[in-house]
């Protein structure tokens, strides 16, 4: 477990300026909505949350798409994988590291949203929606990371987008429950359709998403353990 945490912390450190920038963006957005307003309407709080939620999912995809590629391109992966680190632990560390960036972003959204919703009394609902967003971001990262174990960043992003979009088509063709096959979209939709008055959490999608993150990590580990770590010769 310690190598996983070390690799995750190291990834977060490498992305520290992006993380700070995202957190500042979340806080800055809230200030734009909230400064000078005695009471921010619930609709504005929701609009703020939904906008930021989309960014959180997008950033997790882009971070995951380039995580392995960057490590190989810079050749830093050699020194890490030459240590007593299993490939599955390395991937778990990367996934945790990738996720920690949108997680901090989501935390900033939740805190800023709490400040915005301080008079609305819907703080609990807001945190629940941010939690769903974070889970969607984690699943999106896991899907993308899986594809990066055998594809370059561009193809991996495309493949991940197709994989995450496929349930939409399945849902329309075969019925509502098919939207939960790979429920990134399903979770995102539940956030976008939510109101702060009555938040119904999509529990089936949440449970499936949590399980799929683990399955995707295992699949990524199996695929990655069979890959050669070839690096460009300078």
């Amino acid at each position, binding site marked *: 477990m310690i190598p996983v945490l070390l690799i995750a912390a190291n990834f977060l450190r490498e992305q520290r300026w992006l993380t700070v920038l995202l957190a500042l963006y979340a806080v800055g957005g809230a200030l734009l909505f909230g400064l000078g307003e005695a009471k921010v309407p619930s609709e504005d709080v929701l609009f703020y949350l939904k906008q930021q939620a989309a960014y959180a999912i997008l950033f997790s995809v882009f971070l995951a798409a380039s995580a392995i590629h960057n490590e190989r391109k810079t050749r830093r992966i050699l020194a890490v994988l*030459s*240590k*007593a680190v299993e490939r599955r632990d390395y991937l778990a560390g990367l996934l945790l590291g990738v996720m920690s960036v949108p997680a901090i972003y989501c935390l900033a959204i939740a805190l800023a949203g709490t400040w915005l919703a301080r008079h609305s009394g819907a703080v609990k609902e807001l945190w629940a929606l941010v939690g769903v967003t974070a889970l969607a971001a984690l699943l999106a990262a896991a899907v993308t990371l899986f594809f990066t174990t055998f594809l370059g960043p561009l193809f991996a992003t495309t493949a991940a987008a197709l994989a995450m979009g496929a349930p939409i088509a399945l849902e329309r063709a075969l019925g509502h429950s098919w939207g939960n096959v790979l429920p990134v979209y399903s979770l995102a939709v539940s956030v976008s359709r939510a109101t702060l008055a009555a938040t119904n959490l999509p529990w089936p999608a949440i449970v499936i998403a949590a399980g799929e993150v683990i399955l995707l990590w295992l699949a990524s580990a199996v695929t990655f353990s069979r890959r050669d770590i*070839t690096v460009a*010769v300078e």
Partner: protein
Amino acid sequence: MSPALEFEQVTKEYRSWRGQTVGALDGFSLTVERGEIFGFLGPNGAGKTTAIHIAMGLMRPTRGAGRMLGEHFGHAPTRARVGFLAENVALYHRPAARLLRFYGALNGLRGPDLRRRCREVLETLELTEVAQRNVGKFSRGMLQRVGLAQALVNDPELLLLDEPTSALDPLGRVAVREILLQAKSRGKTVFLSSHLLSEIELICDRVAILNRGRLVRIGRTAELLESRDRLEVVARGIDPAAFAASLSDDGLVAFRVAASGQREAIERVWSLGGEIVRVNPVRKSLEEVFVELTGNGGGDGEGRL
């Protein structure tokens, strides 16, 4: 005790998306015994780095297998007992001391042991004064020292070093040579890939030469450098002009002859009233041996001294 490193008929082929195959190693077999400093030579593209990366589990052989410290290649826990320095070392941009702690911790070192090893290695590589500086601001030579430090931080039984001194100045090279000799004196094994043949010649017990993915020569360094087909004869009491290309100094005349002409040359010295002082195999430089084996048309078959 099992050998430090064993390659058994390892073949590595790279396949492109279009199905083209490029061979990097071709039935490569090699055994490195524990406690020796082993030199691994070959021209660019010979397959040295591929072999090292396969041993470290960074790549999988297309065919064949191998063992490192008694465990199959790619066995992660075994790597805690191995130090590895890649060619053109690349490290995260962090203060050197923290970076060492990071790599040491990845190898399972914790607490006081980790701190002690980091301190020792920083001292050994003369990095103590710059330990708090970010390695992103280091020169290439300094970076290489940090690279060596991360390879040594776990006090490894086996060191695999790919061009460890390529970026170092002469003093740095001497220091690294001392470190490797010290490691050997403590029973460690060093597997050293380098283009600096003079260094290999100085410190390696055995040398293997790889060309086009195949082992073309392996043997003890001293034996490898001895020419078996040329001899140097040193005599006294003869006229230097009696032998072509002879050298004369302080009454001694030295000349070289083919091994097959040794008896004839000695008899000629005697017939001229001279006296044989010594007859030795001609010692080649490692560079000469290397060029001989890896130059055009050289070294297509495996040989063993």
